[in-house]
C-alpha cells in the first residue's frame, strides 16, 4: 500500500462533518453559531431553593436554549433516587467511621447531579463515572454492594462494566473521559445509536486529558455529553485557582461544541438540560458540555479536614440550597407526592441502607490467589511460580498454627 498525503478518507462521504452538524443545529434553533455554542447568560434553574417553580421567563432560558419541564413520572422517579442517594451517602460515611469501608468520597449535596446523570440515559447508553459518582452508578441499576466493593477494599471494582454499560469508577482524573469518547466512537462505527455521558469534577477540568477528550469528541463528531459537577473545590483548591474562564461551560466553544450551565441542586433543571443534551447528541449534534453548579457538603473524603480551607458559613449557605428538600416541597406542592408516597420512598431508601449494612458489615473472606488470577487472560509462567510460592507460604503458616512448636 502506498501512502499519499492527499488520499481520500474512505468514510468521508458518509461522515457528516462537524461544521455541518453545527450549522444544522444553528438552523434548527435559528441562532448564531456563537449563541449555539456559548452557554446561556444565566444558569438554567427551574425550581428555586425554596421549592417554587420559577416563572418561565426567569429560568435562564434563551432562544435556542429552551428547556421543557420534564414529565411528572420522571420527576417522581428522580425524587425517589434522590432520597435513596442521600441515604446511601450517609450510610456509607457511617460504615467508614465503623471501619467497614476503607474510604468513601461522598456526594452528599450533589445527589441531584448523580441522579440526573443516570436517569437521562437510555438502556443502551454508557456512563463513565468518577470515584465520587457511586450514587449515579447505583441509579443506573448496579447492585449497591457491588458498587461499594471498590471502597470496601477487597477489590478495585465490583461490577461488570459491559453488563451495566457503566465504566469502572475512575480515580486518575479525567482519564475516563477518553474512554467514554472511545466507546462512543466504536458505537458510531458499529452503527449503534449509543450516547455516552462522561463525568468529571471542576478541578479535573485542568487536566490535559480533559482537553484531549473534548477535542477528540468534537473532531470525530461523537455523541458524548461531558458532565462537569462543579462542586467548587478540588480537595482544598477553590475553582478560582483552576480556571479564570467566565464559566467551565464556556470552554465548550473552544472545541466547537455547545455548552450549558445549570443549577446542580435543581434536579428538574438538570433533567431538562441533560435530557436535551442526550437527545441532541443522539440526533447527531456532536458532543456537548454541561456544567452543574453544586457543592460538596462534606470533606473530600473521610481522610480530609475541610475546616482547613473553607468557612462553616459557606457550607451553611449551601445547606439552604439542598437538592432534596427543595424537590420534596415542589412535588408536594404540585400534589405529586403525599405522606404515603414519601413513606414508601423512605422505606425503599432504608432497604437499600440495610442491604449496604449487611453486605458491607460482614467480613467477606478474601482469596489471596486472586492476586494472580486476573493479571492476564492466561497466567504467565512467572505468575504461576509466584502464586505457588504464596500458596506454599500460606500452607506452612496454617500448619504451624495447627501444631504450635
Amino acid at each position: 500500500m502506498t501512502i499519499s498525503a492527499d488520499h481520500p478518507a474512505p468514510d468521508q462521504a458518509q461522515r457528516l462533518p462537524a461544521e455541518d452538524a453545527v450549522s444544522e443545529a444553528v438552523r434548527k434553533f435559528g441562532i448564531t453559531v456563537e449563541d449555539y455554542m456559548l452557554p446561556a447568560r444565566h444558569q438554567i434553574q427551574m425550581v428555586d431553593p425554596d421549592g417554587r417553580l420559577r416563572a418561565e421567563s426567569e429560568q435562564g432560558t434563551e432562544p435556542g436554549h429552551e428547556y421543557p419541564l420534564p414529565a411528572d413520572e420522571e420527576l417522581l422517579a428522580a425524587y425517589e433516587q434522590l432520597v435513596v442517594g442521600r441515604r446511601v451517602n450517609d450510610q456509607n460515611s457511617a460504615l467508614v467511621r465503623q471501619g467497614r469501608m476503607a474510604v468513601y468520597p461522598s456526594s452528599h449535596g450533589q445527589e441531584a447531579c448523580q441522579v440526573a446523570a443516570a436517569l437521562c440515559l437510555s438502556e443502551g447508553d454508557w456512563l463513565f463515572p468518577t470515584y465520587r459518582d457511586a450514587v449515579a452508578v447505583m441509579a443506573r441499576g448496579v447492585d449497591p454492594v457491588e458498587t461499594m466493593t471498590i471502597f470496601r477494599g477487597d477489590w478495585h471494582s465490583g461490577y461488570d462494566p459491559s453488563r451495566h454499560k457503566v465504566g469502572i469508577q475512575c480515580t486518575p482524573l479525567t482519564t475516563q473521559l477518553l474512554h467514554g469518547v472511545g466507546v462512543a466512537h466504536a458505537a458510531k462505527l458499529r452503527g449503534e445509536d449509543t450516547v455516552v455521558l462522561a463525568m468529571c469534577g471542576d478541578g479535573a477540568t485542568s487536566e490535559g486529558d480533559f482537553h484531549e477528550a473534548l477535542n477528540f469528541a468534537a473532531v470525530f463528531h461523537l455523541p458524548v455529553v461531558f458532565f462537569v459537577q462543579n462542586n467548587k473545590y478540588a480537595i482544598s483548591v477553590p475553582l478560582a485557582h483552576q480556571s479564570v474562564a467566565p464559566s467551565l461551560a464556556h470552554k465548550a466553544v473552544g472545541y466547537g461544541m455547545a455548552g450549558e450551565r445549570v443549577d446542580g441542586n435543581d434536579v428538574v433543571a438538570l433533567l431538562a438540560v441533560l435530557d436535551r443534551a442526550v437527545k441532541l447528541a443522539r440526533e447527531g449534534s456532536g458532543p456537548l458540555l454541561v456544567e452543574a453548579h453544586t457543592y460538596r457538603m462534606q470533606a473530600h473524603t473521610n481522610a480530609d479536614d475541610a475546616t482547613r480551607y473553607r468557612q462553616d458559613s459557606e457550607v451553611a449557605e449551601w445547606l439552604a440550597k439542598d437538592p432534596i428538600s427543595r424537590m420534596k416541597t415542589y412535588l408536594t406542592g404540585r400534589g405529586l407526592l403525599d405522606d404515603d408516597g414519601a413513606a414508601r420512598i423512605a422505606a425503599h431508601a432504608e432497604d437499600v441502607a440495610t442491604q449496604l449494612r449487611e453486605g458491607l458489615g460482614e467480613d467477606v473472606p478474601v482469596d489471596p490467589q486472586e492476586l494472580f488470577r486476573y493479571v492476564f487472560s492466561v497466567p504467565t509462567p512467572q505468575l504461576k511460580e509466584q502464586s505457588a510460592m504464596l500458596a506454599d507460604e500460606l500452607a506452612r503458616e496454617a500448619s504451624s498454627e495447627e501444631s504450635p512448636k
Partner: protein
Amino acid sequence: MSPTITTSSEANGNVSAATARAAASAASVAEASGPQPITMAKALNTALADAMHADPSVLVFGEDVGLLGGVFRITDGLTRTFGEQRCFDTPLAESGIVGMAVGMAMNGMRPVVEMQFDAFAYPAFQQIVSHVAKMHNRTRGTVKLPMVIRVPYAGGIGGVEHHCDSSESYYAHTAGLKVFTPATVADSYRMLREAIDSDDPVMFMEPKKLYWSKDLVDLSGLREEHVSNAEAGVSSEGRAAVARSGTDATLIAYGPSVPTALAAAAAAAEEGRSLEVIDVRSIVPFDDETVCASVRKTGRAVVIAEAHGFASVSSEIVARVQERCFHYLAAPIRRVTGFDVPYPAPKLEHYYLPGVDRILDAVDDLQWEN
C-alpha cells in the same frame, strides 16, 4: 503586587521581607535542644522551610500544597510563612506542574514540586522523561535543571488503587534523573536538603507509610550538619548506609522496606543469625562500594523491595552485586519483592508486601552449611 522573589544569582545578601519573616519563623520552630521525637513528615516539612529560608529561589508548588499544607501535610505552614508567591497551589495538572518547573528552573528558580501520589505523577511522565532528564545533556551542560520532584510512594497504608504504586524503577531507568529515597527521619531531612541543593533534577521518593514514623532527632543539629557538610562537599548522594551491622548475610533494602529488613534482622538475631542491613538511600547514583563491601564480607545477600521484581531496581542491584562480587558469593543472591501483579486492594496488600517471614525464608535459602 510586584514580584518580590529573588533568584539564586541575585540572592546573595538580598533577602526579601518574606524571607526575613521566614527566618524568624524557622527560628521559632527552634526545637528544644537535643534529640526530640520527630516524625518524618515534620522533618521533611522542616527541610523545605529551611531550604526556602536559605535560598529565596526555592519555590514549592503542586496540588493542595498551599492552604491545606498537602494531603500529607508535608508543606504545612509554608504559604503562611513564605507567602503565596513561594508556596502555592497550581491548577490540577501534573504535566503542567512539572513542565512549568522546568521553565522556572531554566530561569533562576529552584522548584520543589509535589506529586500528590505516586500514580498521579504519570500525567507528568512525558515532561520528566523527555525534558527533566534530558535538558542538561541535550544542551551540552549549558542548561541545568535544579529541581526536585517529590513523590509520596509505595503502599502499606491500606490505600485504594493508584495510591500505592512503587514507581521508582521508571525513574531509575531513565538516564539523567537522580533518585533518592530516605528511610529514616534524619535522612529525610538530610537528603531533601541535598536534593534541593543539587544542580541536577532529583526524583525524591518519600515512603508514605513512614511519614508518621518517629525517631529521636536533633533538628538543629541536622541543620548545622547540613551547612558544614555543604561547605566540606560531603553528601549522602550516592552513599548507602549500614543500618545494622552483621556478619552472616546482607539484606539490601531501600525506603519502605528498610524497617522491614531491620525487623527481619532482629528476628534472625534471636535465632543466632547475624544479618547486616544496607539502606540504599540513593538509588541513582548507586553506591556500589558500600553494598559490595558488605556482600564481600558476608558472602550472602537478599535484596528487598516493595516494587514488582521484574525489570526493577531490585533486579539492577542483583545484577551489579553479582558482577562485582561473584567470587565472594556462597549462594545465589535472592530477592524478596512485590509480586508481578497490580498493587492489590487494601485487604490483600499484606499478601503482596515483603514481610519478615518472607525475608527469613529467603535467608534460609542461602545454602548454609548446617
